[in-house]
């Protein structure tokens, strides 16, 4: 049943996502700078960027159609929904039944299709190139992500993310070998999907290898701000999904206010450590050629399928 505390928790989870997501990106930028022996930008640098962009006028290309203006809002809406259904603090989320883990993959897919279409809308060479590459990464990463979810869903006997967290967090501590495979595959996918280093470089511009940046070249002002914010939310959503699937401890259950309060610092701590590890992995890796990306994501896919097979072969004792 939908309870008042559930609704409050839900609203709080969304608000927290909107606030924390740019900070996570800022933290990542700081760690990267430290690891590369540069002086770091402040933690709230992404906020400065968003504020600047929101204040600027929009310059639209003459060939832009309504779809181009509409797409940033859709992408942003998809990411808000994704953040709303992934349990970050508590599993008591009234919106959670709206989409299970499979539908979550669908939400990311919807956002990807819209941003690719918007990239193709202006009709520039960079835009179509970016759109094509985004869809390429997408169709390689999506099956791997689905297989990861299949593995976890088979352990928890459910595809609902909230149920998965409840099952995994409150069982006896068992090390599942399949989860290790799935976790590695998920990390691979998360890097690719969030346009991070081995596949794409968030710091680059005007390079023939860029993907995400190539798609949003024509965006400006509030549209660009929304897309950047949505990208932050996507990173946050993936991080929280990873935490929920593989390190679910500390996420509160229903009607447990104290646990909810305790969950906040724990989440921040997990994100800090996770963000640092992400930055570390990004720093020690080099960007791959675009046609090495299929190998990279193919590895992720095979690892995820291996995880599934390990689950079926070794762990199911019927």
């Amino acid at each position, binding site marked *: 049943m939908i309870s008042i505390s559930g609704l409050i928790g839900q609203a709080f989870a969304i608000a927290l996502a909107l606030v924390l997501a740019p900070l996570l990106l800022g933290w990542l930028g700081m760690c990267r700078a430290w690891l590369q022996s540069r002086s770091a930008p402040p933690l709230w640098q992404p906020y400065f960027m968003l504020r600047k962009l929101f204040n600027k006028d929009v310059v639209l290309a003459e060939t832009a159609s309504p779809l181009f203006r509409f797409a940033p809002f859709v992408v942003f809406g998809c990411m808000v929904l994704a953040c709303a259904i992934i349990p970050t603090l508590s599993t008591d989320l009234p919106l959670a039944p*709206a989409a299970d883990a499979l539908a979550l993959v669908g939400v990311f897919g919807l956002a990807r299709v819209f941003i690719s279409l918007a990239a193709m809308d*202006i*009709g520039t060479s960079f835009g179509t190139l970016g759109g*094509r590459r985004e869809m390429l990464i997408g169709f390689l990463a999506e099956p791997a992500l*689905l297989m990861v979810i299949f593995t976890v869903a088979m352990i928890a006997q459910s595809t609902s993310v909230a149920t998965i967290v409840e099952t995994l967090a409150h069982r006896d501590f068992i090390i599942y070998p399949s989860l290790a495979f799935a976790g590695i595959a998920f990390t691979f996918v998360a890097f690719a999907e969030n346009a991070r280093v081995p596949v794409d470089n968030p710091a680059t511009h005007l390079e023939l290898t860029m993907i995400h940046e190539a798609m949003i070249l024509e965006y400006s002002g509030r549209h660009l701000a929304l897309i950047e914010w949505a990208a932050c939310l996507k990173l946050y959503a993936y991080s929280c999904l990873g935490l929920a699937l593989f390190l679910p401890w500390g996420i509160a259950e229903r009607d447990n206010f104290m646990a909810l309060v305790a969950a906040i610092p724990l989440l921040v701590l997990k994100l800090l450590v996770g963000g640092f590890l992400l930055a570390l992995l990004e720093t020690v890796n080099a960007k791959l050629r675009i046609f090495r990306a299929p190998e990279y994501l193919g590895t992720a896919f095979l690892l995820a399928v291996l995880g599934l097979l390990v689950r079926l072969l070794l762990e199911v004792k019927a």
Partner: protein
Amino acid sequence: MPSLLAIDTLLIAACVWAILGLAGLMAPRKTRFIAKTLFPLGALVSVLAGIVGLASLGATSQTAVLVIGLPDLPFHLRLDNLSAIFVTLLGFVSAGISIFAAGYFRQGEGTAPGLLCFEYHIFLASMLLVLLADDAYAFMVAWETMALSSFFLVTTDHRHETIRRAGFLYLLIAHIGAIAILLSFGVMTGGAGGSGDYSFAGMRAQQLSPFWSSAAYLLALVGFGAKAGLLPLHVWLPEAHPAAPSPVSALMSGVMLKTAIYGLLRVSFDLVGTPIWWWGVVALAIGLATALFGVLYSTVQSDMKRLLAYSSIENIGLLAIGIGLALIFHSYRMEALAALALTAVFYHCLAHAGFKSLLFLCTGSVLHATKERSLGKLGGLIHRMPWVAWLALVGVIASAGLPPLSGFVSEWLLLQSFLFSPGLPHAWLNMVVPVAAAVVALVAALAGFAMVKFYGIIFLGQMREDSLKDAHDAGVWEKAGLVWLALITVLLGIMPATVILRIDAATRQLLGAGLSEHVRDHGWWMLAPISPERASYESVIFLVTIVLSVWLGRWLVHHLYHGRGRRSAAWDCGYHFQGPRAQDTAEGFSQPIRRIFEPMFRMQRHLPTARDREPYYSVQVEDHFWHWLYLPIARLAAWLSMRITTLQGGRIAVYLMYSFITLLLLLLVARP
């Protein structure tokens, strides 16, 4: 006075269609009368048929006997839940297509409009009879009428040689399929010491040995697979769909392929008796190959209708996967899971009929507006054809299997039924089936790629040709047809629980189990086939959340900041000299796929070199099956006929001798 039965209403509908067709034949050149009176009336009849079909879901089955045909061989007809689902599909989808056709067919394009109207309505009536037939005889007569009328519709533009060739290829494969179906019915009727009762009731009563029932199932798989486009009998689809006028492609892809699925379901779940587990594995394997093949080829096409035709092959593959899973579960008596897979099949039939017809009709509007169907010459049509473009977007999102539209629901149900497979009592299957799910995931993701290519290249970007500036939006009738189909797609997407409660009657008839007891426990907005803890999907909440955050986001941004903006030339990294030619072509967009999946394609590429006076790039992708299967068979047939011609010396004495020898041999063999 006995009240009018549903089946009688449907028979009247078929008759009215035939009368409408004949009326068109009476006035073959009166385009206005045919388009604005006969086709809308046909659409009205379609809606009626759809409503009757919907109302008969869950009702007891009705039978009728028609004393037409040969003496002592009456047509048996029956309307049960399985038929009713497909009648509903036929009615509602063909209504949209007929309305569209009212604005589409014009004077002076190949076949006279009156003849076209006749063929079109006979096609509709024969599909209805296929669904209602309750004996092998009526089924085959209706099946062949359907094949022939659609052949004539495909060859509407028969002055082009390629179109005639496409038509003959279609006819050939349709007949190979028909022979297989006939043999399958023969096996089920005759069997070992069979009664020879050709009605479906007689076939159900037969107790076939596993060998013969497997033979009947495999023959049916080949026969209906040929009509549906399963590998390797798929080659007619990408030829016939571009050849046919768009409403006909829509009708064939949206509805006719589903009659083949209906036939397969009818034989494998209803007529042939208890299934054996490996039947499901065969269907699953063929379905996986078909789906992967279809989607890969659809991503590399340069002709918009060929792209959609290959995408139809992919969807038929997904349906075969669902049928295979349902058969596997059914053979192990795991009826609840079989019901889940079968519901996915029915749902995907409905969803695909809606969105694929919509997309084919959109290509029709584009074709009329621009006279182009090569993707390389289109682009930017969203500015000139906003109605078609936005409605096509609905079809594209559904076809890419994305929430919250219809394609996602069936895909979700299919993936859920894969997730349950580890309960199977067969260790080997337990291993293989989840890996099959991986292929389904890949297919779904690739479908998104194909659809972004389709939509982005046709409707977005800059116009690749100057002539596109004169393109105009679709007319009122065309818009009405498109809106109708888009509405079906959206409704199927946001009301899955309501639809599944309807489908339930058919799964219950075939399996004795359904999803209704779990689905009914929750509101109409929530789809939880087993339990909400296990898996749930609420597309309305989904849609509302996204719409709300879009609207709220827009309002807040405009309110807190400003809504200022101006137009300027595209920035494009400061390089201003890029014309429409700098955009990706259809070939360019699919280059990554060609590169990654190179062994899957047979490619002929010409790359320009530095020394070329007139450098050009071309790439042609062909089907391996042509070169590995069809051409060798064609060569063999040609070679055999050459050998046989030596028998024909042209001298009558020799021919008489042949007859004499044949007679002697027959006497020898047929000696009592």
